[in-house]
């Protein structure tokens, strides 16, 4: 449904997007994961026809977007990162306007307005000015505004920035409903938990390039460890951290307070590790395990943390 082929965009000497390609089918959620400045928003801008690519092509249902009034834009809904709403107008007036941009008017517009307000749980606030809404409500209306013309492809640029957990979950529910309805969703975020929960396929971007692209399970296979073992030590001091890191099967070892965190290649090595610890001043109270995340994969691929960059 949505195809990006070798998209490139530079601003002066800065290559904001450098050869990005992917395909997203109907009923799929495709995630663009990367730190701020990775090129996600510029990529979305090119997909939506907001930014002209220096090279490459975007196609929707096999047709390229050509010009300001391209009919393909009718199939696209864009949820900007900003709260792109008129605070001075009511929710209904906002939706009426954004519907009109796609030719909706009269009874058809009213019907769509009811549909999207119900979807995002704001039907009872239709007549209220947006300026009176909470941040979470605005985020939901921001999503609703992109759905007025019932687009097949929905581009969501960090749609949960700055919202509380309740609103975030409500937005996730909305997106899952849209996915179930067969919509094609492209989702950018720098929250790995969101990407893991929602996306069928994820492309990790850094410095304008896709550095890995796969399903969540496929990406996790890029992680250098199969698990992390979290060991709560009895003593405040552990003098043998370097030796622990050098043990066979251990990829990484960090100590934070009394908690020792070991990245291991295989859980089969765990009994041997614990025995070694007991023999080297590492008496412990509790042992937990944690699976690696996309954060681990990003750190492994770039040497940097998603949130630190």
């Amino acid at each position, binding site marked *: 449904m949505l195809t990006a082929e070798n998209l490139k965009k530079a601003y002066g000497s800065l290559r904001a997007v450098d050869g990005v390609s992917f395909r997203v089918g109907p009923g799929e959620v495709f995630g663009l994961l990367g730190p701020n400045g990775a090129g996600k928003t510029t990529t979305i*801008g090119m997909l939506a*026809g907001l*930014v002209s690519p220096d090279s490459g092509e975007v196609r929707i249902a096999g047709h390229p977007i050509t010009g300001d*009034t391209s009919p393909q834009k009718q199939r696209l809904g864009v949820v900007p990162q900003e709260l*792109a709403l008129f605070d001075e107008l009511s929710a209904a007036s906002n939706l009426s306007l954004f519907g*009109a941009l796609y030719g909706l008017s009269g009874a058809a517009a009213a019907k769509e307005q009811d549909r999207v307000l119900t979807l995002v749980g704001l039907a009872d606030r239709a007549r209220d000015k947006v300026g009176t809404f909470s941040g979470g409500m605005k985020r939901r209306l921001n999503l609703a505004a992109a759905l007025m013309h019932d687009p097949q492809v929905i581009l969501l640029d960090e749609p949960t920035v700055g919202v509380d957990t309740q609103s975030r979950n409500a937005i996730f529910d909305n997106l899952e409903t849209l996915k179930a309805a067969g919509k094609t969703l492209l989702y950018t975020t720098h929250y790995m938990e969101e990407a893991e929960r929602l996306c069928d396929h994820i492309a990790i971007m850094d410095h304008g390039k896709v550095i890995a692209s796969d399903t969540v399970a496929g990406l996790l296979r890029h992680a250098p460890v199969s698990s992390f073992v979290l060991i709560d030590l009895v003593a405040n001091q552990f003098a043998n951290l370097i030796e622990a890191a050098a043990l066979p099967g251990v990829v990484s070892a960090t100590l934070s307070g009394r908690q020792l965190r070991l990245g291991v290649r295989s859980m089969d090595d765990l009994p041997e590790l614990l025995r070694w610890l007991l023999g080297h001043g590492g008496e412990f109270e509790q042992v937990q395990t944690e699976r690696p995340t996309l954060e681990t994969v990003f750190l492994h691929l770039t040497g940097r943390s998603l949130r630190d960059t």
Partner: protein
Amino acid sequence: MTAFLALVRKDLQIFFGDTRAVIMAFAAPILIGSFFGYVFGGNQTKKDSTQMQVLFVDQEQGPVAKQLLAAMQQDANLLVSLSALEPAREAVRKGKAPVAVVIPAGFGDQAAQALFGSGPKPEITVLFDPSHQTEASMVRGILTGQVMQTVTKESFGNKATVRTARERLKDSTMEPARKAALTELFSSLDRYGDQPGAGSGGLSVPFQTKDEAMTARAGVAYNSYAHSFGGMAIQFMLFMGVDVGIGLLLLRQRGLWRRFRAAPLSKTVLLGSRAASAMLVGMMILTVVFTFARVVFGVKIEGSLLGFIGICAAFSLMTAAYGLLIAAIGRTPEAARGLATLATLLMVMMSGAWVPSFLFPSWMQGVTKAVPARWAMDGLDAMTWRGLGIEEALLPIAVLLGSAAVFGAIAVWRFRWEAD
């Protein structure tokens, strides 16, 4: 068309939902226009309520001063009241009265002697507020005429005055031939004083002026509210144009531009709808402001109504294009606001909206013709109080439309279409 109309409706909804914007656009020009109109003379078809206050200090306490006082009180331009010297000085110093005239003791006799050259001229002191020099000059002129008439009337009609003058002439060292001629004149005046009705006239200035304000036509007085309301409407419309530009920049900052550009809309629809809504608001401002001026201050379109409407429409379009230009040139709302406000104030000042452009130095009058708002101001003046025909509206309309085209073209050329 649905999108175009929806965008225009949105602009109007936002504009009329913003109390501050509405007050600035509609109430402010009415209030300030009323003030300037009043200050610059108001509607002169009404009874003049701007009589100049003059304090009259009578140190003579004689018939000449009394006649002079009565004559000045008859003058429609003056509001004359008696005062003692020190209170008069204090009143003028404090700005409570612009002018005071002091008639010295013995003024009548001295003036009569001086009239015939047989004595020194008495001195009338005119105390005036330095910020009212024009009024002081006007009082001097009126006073000269009145003194001339009063003193000659008293001299020619009062036999005692003539007799006294003749007695003094006897002791004078004047050359004999001149003295003889004056003696003969006094004899004639003596005989003239015996005639019935003598002393009722006196010499007066041998001409009078007829002032005719060149307004729409004879009998139609100048109404300064016509100029002030036009000027203020122009000023606040231009500020509305600044808001149009800033509003477009804010769309970009608030991410709304991304939504608009993502929709299948042409650049013409996006910018044209903004220009159309600005033009509509501009026309509304002009309609409301001039309707108020008509109802409250009697401002009439004395000239061509069609020409007036044409100038209003052309200026509204120019204002809309000016707003688009600001949006195209400005990088951020904050940066654009300061520069646009300065440019607008300069344009308003040079248009003659605050003070009529004929008061500008001649070089500046030439320069201001490059300012579109000057053409709007001149055009509105022409169609209102000057009462000129549509042919006088054509050039201002053409200049305003041309300016709108230039501003619009630059705006389209320089506008950053891509979303940030």
